[in-house]
């Protein structure tokens, strides 16, 4: 059990790096507190798996350090770091039984057979594998195999952290839900640090207390699901989280104000600097109302999802989506929009201006 610290961490799979794009992970600084449930969220290819493999010790970072409880572990291997990791696709040892598969990590550490036996049965019970313990692992279905992979990660009770690399990819949707709540339940029971990599926002938001969002090798925001929703610090967080994502409209900054198409927009704070090449104003569809005056738009279409209505509109600066209540009257043709001031943010070069 340990607090995990990543310091100025960068990694590249290339020998020589010329631009930012050559780095799979760049300039990561983060503390993972002991016992936390974290989700590492980002699209495919953003460097999540690389970061995870660096923490577990499968990859040596090009630059930077990893500390466990302030002790340097950068050059230690996964066994010395005492990390458990579960991979995206089930990894099982074909020739062994389910029992031997689960016992394998313990046997490699030369633990007494008696202890192994009780531990394996405990984990098998939890994952509902008890009845298949003596079967050959190769005969199981994909989700049975993935349960074994999970079990091998969970069977060691002294690990510093458990890493999950999109572990539910191959699992049926209904089982996914069950296994995810199992993991959550397990986290409360054993209180280990868990880091859960996923590109699925629902998975991340339901599993984790703290969500770490990655984009192009960088960590763009760390926070609770509510933080990420209410105050995205990066435009990527804005449109990646939420359905539909945040409305981002090109605008101008003048005298501390945000000017959208000649109209002043009130944001949660004044804009101090003006030296950005890309200037945008962002507001989530949930925080926009129709009004008698405001930003003029044309209503394009309305789709009703049952829980709410999604309204597509066209303004001078681009399309704006609005989420309205299912019983709300949607004006047709021309309308005016008001942004909620406290949830409207200005972004300079993709980062929030505060």
């Amino acid at each position, binding site marked *: 059990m340990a607090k995990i610290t990543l310091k100025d961490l960068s990694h590249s799979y290339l020998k020589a790096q010329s631009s930012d794009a050559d780095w799979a992970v760049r300039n990561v600084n983060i503390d993972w507190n002991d016992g936390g449930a974290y989700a590492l969220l980002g699209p495919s290819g953003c460097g999540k798996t690389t970061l995870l*493999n660096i923490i577990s010790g499968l990859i040596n970072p090009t630059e930077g350090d990893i500390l466990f409880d302030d002790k340097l572990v950068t050059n230690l291997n996964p066994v010395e770091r005492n990390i458990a990791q579960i991979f995206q696709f089930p*990894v099982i040892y074909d020739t062994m039984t389910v029992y031997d598969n689960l016992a394998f990590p313990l046997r490699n550490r030369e633990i007494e057979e008696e202890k192994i036996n009780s531990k394996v049965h405990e984990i098998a019970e939890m994952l509902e594998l008890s009845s298949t313990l003596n079967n050959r692992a190769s*005969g199981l279905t994909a989700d049975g195999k993935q349960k074994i992979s999970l079990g091998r990660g969970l069977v060691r009770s002294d690990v510093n952290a458990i890493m999950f690399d999109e572990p539910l990819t191959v699992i049926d949707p209904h089982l996914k839900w069950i296994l995810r709540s199992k993991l959550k339940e397990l986290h409360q029971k054993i209180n280990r640090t868990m880091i859960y990599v996923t590109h699925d926002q629902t998975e991340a938001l339901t599993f984790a207390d703290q969500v770490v969002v990655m984009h192009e090798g960088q960590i763009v925001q760390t926070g609770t699901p509510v933080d990420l929703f209410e105050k995205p610090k990066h435009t990527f967080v804005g449109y990646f989280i939420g359905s539909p994502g945040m409305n981002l409209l090109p605008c101008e900054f003048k005298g501390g104000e945000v000017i959208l198409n000649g109209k002043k927009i009130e944001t949660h704070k004044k804009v101090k600097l003006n030296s950005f090449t890309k200037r945008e104003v962002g507001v989530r569809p949930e925080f926009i109302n129709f009004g008698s005056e405001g930003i003029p738009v044309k209503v394009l279409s309305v789709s009703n999802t049952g829980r709410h209505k999604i309204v597509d509109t066209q303004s001078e600066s681009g399309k704006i989506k609005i989420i309205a209540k299912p019983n709300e009257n949607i004006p047709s043709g021309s309308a005016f929009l008001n942004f909620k001031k406290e949830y409207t943010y200005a972004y300079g070069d993709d980062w929030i201006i505060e």
Partner: protein
Amino acid sequence: MNKTINQKAWFFVIPVFVLVAFNAIIPLMTVVNYAFQETFGNNVFMWEGTRWFKQIMLSERFHASLGRQFLFTFIILFIQIPLGIAIALTMPKEGIGVPVCLVLMSMPLLIPWNVVGAMWNIFALPDIGFLGHSLNALGFDYNFTQQIGDAWFTTILMDVWHWTSLVVLLSYAGLQSIQPAYYQAAEIDGASRWAVFTKIELPKMKKVLTIAILLRFMDSFMIYTEPFVLTGGGPGNATAFLSIDLVKMALGQFDLGPAAAMSLIYFFIVLLVCWVFYTLMMRNEGNQ
């Protein structure tokens, strides 16, 4: 399960049947013809029943060459399979080394059999060959044309040189198909290098190794050209393996009946061993 009954479907089997008939069944039938009859030419045949088969099965000469054949095949399998796996394990997995190794490895496979035999014959000649001369210069009394042990040693060395690459390439393909996650998981699980080999690599190579062993068994069991060019079956009959002995009988002595019977027995041994071996190797595959 309900099977659809449609006798017309047999028509679709005809092309395959015709092909197989022309390249296997009909030529084989001429051998069968000779195996049960005696001929003095001019297309005159006399029925002999199982006489040739009895003769071959009881002949010491056949027992001896069959024994030599099994010994040779087992020795080369015993060397080539582990050696091939070992070389495959040490080959680079990425980078410029991969094509270099693959090309180097496939070189021996591209050389025609009789050239291999001739090459090794010259290479191993005790007076002028590099290998033979060097061994003698080092103080070994080496002469593969006269000493039985040396003849076997050279034949085996030649076969290992010629065919280990096949096992290497197949094993390498098997190793390359293992996903990196398996190695990563093993690393996380704290598995030793030996455990990685026995629990991951060997089981994952099982199918290609089955094929490698089958191919090497069949090829070595039917080996002809290379030892024929290298030793000619000698000294004496020391390296006269089944096919060499068969050709001697059929074309040297013109004993067509016994030779045909021997061919059929030979054919059934190969078939039987392959079938038994394949069945054993694949016995546990059913549930995968």
